């Protein structure tokens, strides 16, 4: 059995996920995707909107849409802090789709930061819900 580590995904309103896992994949601000396994060196990163995957010890994967935040790795523990994060199973796919379309529509006319982050959020949601974008 592969070495495990403790993973916590925490939002201000609740602890979304807490448990053992073999690997976590997330995406840092400007740095691309990054994976952590047991025994990773201490790490601190700022996250962008992304689809975070937590590989559990039983082989299943927990999909979480993380809308910005931070990741801290130390002592064989990965903590993901986000002021807005959703479990993939709880995402409203239709809403995410229409949000994506609205954002794309707006981006066609003007290039504004809000629409870009809205698009990023909808992408993260849809991917976490298991839909390829």
């Amino acid at each position, binding site marked *: 059995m592969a070495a495990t580590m403790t993973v*916590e995904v*925490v*939002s*201000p*309103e*609740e*602890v979304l996920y807490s448990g053992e896992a073999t690997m976590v994949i997330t995406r*840092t*601000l*400007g*740095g691309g995707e*990054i994976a952590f396994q047991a025994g990773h*060196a*201490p*790490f*601190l*990163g*700022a996250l962008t909107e992304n689809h975070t995957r937590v590989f559990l010890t039983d082989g299943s994967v927990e999909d979480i849409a993380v809308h910005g*935040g*931070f990741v*801290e790795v*130390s*002592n064989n523990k990965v*903590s993901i*802090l986000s*002021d*807005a994060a959703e479990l993939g199973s709880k995402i409203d796919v239709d809403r995410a789709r229409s949000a994506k379309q609205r954002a794309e529509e707006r981006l066609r006319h003007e290039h504004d930061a809000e629409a870009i982050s809205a698009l990023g959020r909808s992408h993260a949601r849809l991917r976490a819900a298991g839909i390829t974008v």
Partner: protein
Amino acid sequence: MAGGQERILRGRIRSMQATKKITRAMELIAASRIVKAQQRVQAAVPYSEQITEVVKDLAAAGANSSSPLLAGRSEVKTTCYVVITADRGLCGGYNAGIQRAAEGEVKADVLAGKGYEIIPVGRKAESYFRFRGYRLGQGFAGFSDSPSYADAKAIGQHVVDLYASGEVDRVELVYTRFITPGSQEVVLRPLVPLSREVVQGGDGKAGSDDGTGGDYEFEPDPTIILETLLPRYVEARVYAALLNAAASEHAFRQRAMKSATDNADELIKNLSIVMNRARQDSITTEIMEIVGGAEALGSGKGAGKQVRIVDFGPLSNPLNDDAHDGFLDIRPASALAATAVGVIEPDDLEGEIEGIGPVIGRKLAEVGITTFKQVAQWTAEDAERIGDQLDFRGRIEREDWIGQAKAAHLAKYGEQL
């Protein structure tokens, strides 16, 4: 009148019972919400603890931030107070306590010649300070009993902007800290700039167990992370304050409504006693009135009869002209005695005296004349006056009622009048 008072009391008791129902319902609702609010406070703890850890670790790792949020200003000219109150009243001294604390701070600042700005959170704070003419910044309201993180975020961003723009040099939170359901306290906590001890308190030994010390890898570089992290940190602090305030609000409301319910109970009890007394009083008065009335009626009838008998008795007192009222005149006691009041047996006037039919007999009886003796003792003037009054003038003389009566009396009683 007593009955009216009783009705008023009944109305007051009814309205008090209605009020009690409302306060009781509010008490129960607040009690159930305390538990929920407490859970939310607990749920927010991991995030704020972890974010504090991250800030400490970053600082310990030497993240060198020129972020204004960390750098305190050398001279504090303007302080911004974020005053967190409820949107609604009916929660005892909850709002008043916070408002008093905040107002005290503001007054101290004004005395010291410093500027201030109040950010009211919750409608009560806004109306309180607006009414008193304080300088208000942007207000936030509408979420006091169950704040969401988005609300905290809006407030956090607003104060960070205020601070960054240099409009204010310090931001303080005034809110009620929830300790237990039975105890809460109003606290004043500095929010911005972030206190040095929080940021520098990082022990730097995260991961030190395996000897790696604070050797973090950063991505992107620590300064950027810190700068994005600090506003989050402020938001988390505001969020925790909002949750504490919400839980405290429910606790205060529950207590206030409990004592309101108790007071209503007490009032209902007292009013019921007063009402019952009033009701008994009015019943007693009624009975007294009935008894008194019956007595007055009974004695009044008896007296009337006696007077009538006397009126047309042995003529010791000739009636005056407006004698139809005079029937009830109280005669001297001697006159009463003279007629030998007692059992006066009526004679058959109609049968024995010619000229007295049923109509005249009834008229005579009405004025108390029922015996031969009474008629026989009339004088000529009496006959004329009575004839006038009873509307059979002249018949008394013409038909010689007096003579007939004497004869009938003689025949019946054997007494010559």
